[in-house]
Structures are given as C-alpha cells and as structure tokens.
C-alpha cells in the first residue's frame, strides 16, 4: 500500500507534470508518436488488405506477415535503429518501429474480414447488377467492418503499449517516466509511470470500442 500511496502522491504533485520531462510533455510525445504511427499503418495496410481481399488473393501473405511480426522483439528493432544513423532523426526510429508492428494486425484482420464475407451474398449482389466498385463499397466493406475495426483496435492498443519501449532506447514518450524512475531508484515514480501507461492503454481501448459502435454501418442503417 505504501508504494501505491507514494505513487499517488507523485502523480498529484503539480511539479511532476510540467517541464521537458514532465507528464504533460511525455503524454504529448506519446500520443503524437502513436497517432502518426497508427495513421501511417492504416494508410499502408488497409488499401493492400482490402484490395487483396476484394480480388480474393494473397491470404497466405497476410498470415505469414502476421506470424513474422510476433517473433520479432520491438526492443531489438528499436535498438537496431538507434545504433544506425537513423538515431539522429528525432521520432523517426520509433515511428518506423511502431508502423512495422501495427501493420500485421491491421492487414490480417482486414483481409480475413474481406474473405469471410459470405460467397452467396456477393454473388447475389453481382446478380443484381452491381459493379466491382459498388460491390466493394456497399456489400464487402460494411460486412468486413467488424473485423477491420477489431484489427484497428488491437493495432492501436499495441502501438500505445509499444511506444513505451521507445524509452528504453532513449526516445520520448510516457515510458521515459518509468525508465527515469528506474535510473534514480525512485520506485513511486516507476509505479506512477506504469499506472499512467496502463490507464492510457485501457482508455484508448475504451475510446475505440465507443468509436466502433458509433461508426458501425449496421447501426447507421437502423437509425436512418
């Protein structure tokens, strides 16, 4: 209880929130890096996955990419970037590493969602005279939507969680509060930082669940 109490005291001390290494600045870095990485990953993964799903090819590719992603430690990838010339380019190493790890879940889920659309439904749509484009926008995309959002959710949570590791190689983000606490043997600060990161990850998950419900094409149809 003692440590948790001290961690709470650390969190509620205003001075710990301000300045270059304060919570506010680190939170900003964390959200910026995660946001950019997630947006980039969507731009890269979704068009490929949706197109491959639409033409019904490349399933093995999606699965293999996802499996490879599991075996590679983010820490190692970030460390490799940090001993290369990339280390002098600001947030770039973190963002590249995060994109590498967000693409597999996005790609796999979107692809699975597209290929799991019932064959008879797409055939019926074609029978009604829908073109490939219409079929994609009005049938396949709405039906694949739940899987795409599941992928987006796991990618987002993963990105926010992984951005923490950036601190271990000296990059910014909330993880810095934890590593700084470790280096100064300040356990309350370590626990406070960990609590912040855990809460942020759960918050992102919650926001995305809400967003998922709001944007669901099936719900929109009901209210319209």
């Amino acid at each position: 209880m003692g440590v948790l109490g001290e961690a709470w005291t650390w969190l509620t001390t205003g001075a710990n929130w301000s300045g270059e290494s304060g919570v506010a600045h680190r939170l900003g870095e964390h959200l910026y890096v995660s946001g950019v990485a997630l947006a980039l990953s969507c731009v890269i993964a979704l068009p490929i996955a949706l197109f491959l799903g639409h033409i019904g090819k490349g399933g093995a590719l999606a699965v293999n990419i996802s499996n490879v992603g599991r075996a590679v430690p983010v820490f190692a990838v970030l460390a490799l970037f940090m001993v290369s010339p990339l280390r002098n380019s600001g947030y770039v190493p973190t963002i590249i590493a995060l994109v590498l790890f967000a693409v597999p879940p996005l790609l796999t889920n979107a692809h699975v969602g597209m290929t799991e659309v019932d064959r008879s439904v797409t055939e019926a749509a074609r029978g009604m005279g829908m073109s490939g484009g219409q079929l994609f926008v009005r049938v396949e995309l709405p039906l694949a939507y739940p899987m795409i959002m599941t992928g987006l959710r796991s990618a987002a949570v993963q990105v926010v969680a992984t951005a923490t590791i950036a601190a271990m190689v000296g990059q910014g983000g909330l993880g810095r509060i934890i590593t700084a606490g470790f280096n100064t043997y300040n356990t309350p600060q370590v626990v406070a930082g960990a609590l912040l990161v855990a809460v942020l990850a759960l918050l992102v998950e919650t926001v995305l669940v809400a967003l998922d419900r709001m944007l669901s094409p099936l719900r929109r149809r009901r209210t319209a």
Partner: protein
Amino acid sequence: MAGQNCLVTNDWICGEYLRSRSQELTDATVQHIWITAVSVAIGVAVAFPLALLARRSRRFAGPVLGLTTVLYTVPSLAMFSLLLPLFGLSAALVVTGLVLYSLTILVRNILAGLEAVPLEAKEAARGMGYGPARLLWEVELPLALPALMAGIRIATVSTVALTTIGSIVGRGGLGNLIDDALPSFFKAQVLAASVLCVLLAVVADLLLLGVQRLLTPWTRISRTRDAVDTAGAAKAV
C-alpha cells in the same frame, strides 16, 4: 586485419565479436530460454484450471476471459514496473509478467479446443462408463490438443520476444546484451542478440510443431491443423 579491426571500426557483422564473447552470448541465450520456458510452463499450469472453470459456467467465463484480456492490454514496460514493489529486481518479476501475458492466449485456446470436442464423442465415452476425470483425460484432452498446442506455440513465440523487455530489471536474457550495447552504439552486439532472439523464436516454434505432430498422429491423416488464434495480435514487445 579485418578480423581484429571490426571491433574497432564497429561493424554490424563482426566475427571477432562472436568468437571473443561467445560465453556471454551463450549465457544470455540460456537465461532467455530458461525464462521463456518457465513462463510458458507456469502459464499452461495456471491457464488450464482457468479454462476448465470458464467452461463450467457462464458466470466464471465472463470474469476469467475479461480479466485475462485486460491484463494483455497493459504495456509490458508498465507491467514489469507495476510488479516491481511485489518482487523487487528479480527473475520472478519477469516470469510473473510473462505468465500473466501468456494467460490470454492460452486460456482462450484451451477453451476453444475443449468446446470444439464433438458432443457424440463425449456421449459415447459417458455411455461406456467414463467418469468426468477419465473423460477429460482420455477423450477431451487429446481432441483439444491441436488447439492447445497452437496456443502454446503462439504464447511461446511472443514470450521469447517479450523476454527482452526484462532487461529493464537486468533479467532479459538476450535483451540484456542489447541494453548493454546501446550506450556505446555497439552494432555487432545489438545485431547478434537481435538475430539470436528471432532465431530462438523460430526454433521454439518448429520444436513445438514437432511435439504437436508426435502427440497427435491422427490429425496428419485426416486434415491439416487449424490454428486457433483468438488473441488476435501479437503482444507489443
């Protein structure tokens, strides 16, 4: 000339490094394997009763699945730090964190495997006078084995990768070498440890696949194995 100088010029690939530090590399690899193996073993031992509990009734299923999923969303650096007041700077800290992460994957896979056992098989066994324990051990478990092994494989591969984060408390196996090499930009060490880590994951996966084939000879005849991957994505490392 190149042999000695690659340490001085800080090359990515350095034979001299591999030769002179082979003991250090071996020690780190052994620690890595040890931490991963213990974590997955404890994970299976904890996940199995939890899966049985979740199967028993809906009342337990919700909390068990919910809790293990929430644990999975906690970032690894935060998880290890949150456990710090409980365990101090020890290997137990890293192992506990890894066990908690493996639970999500393992519980879901074991549950999916047990629920996929055909009802006819269970009823036939009951008709033959099998009690619940014998039914579980001799009928349900063998039939759930492919799903169980798929879960163990996924859990092992992500645990190998996650173990590196344990270097924050100095118990990260190959992660320690990466951590040590960072301040001096020692490229050969970072690359060697990273490659070893990925190799370890691949070898572990292949070994487990072999074990699975040995344990379930009947699946090779009828159909190919379908992996149950309910956890969705790899755990952030």
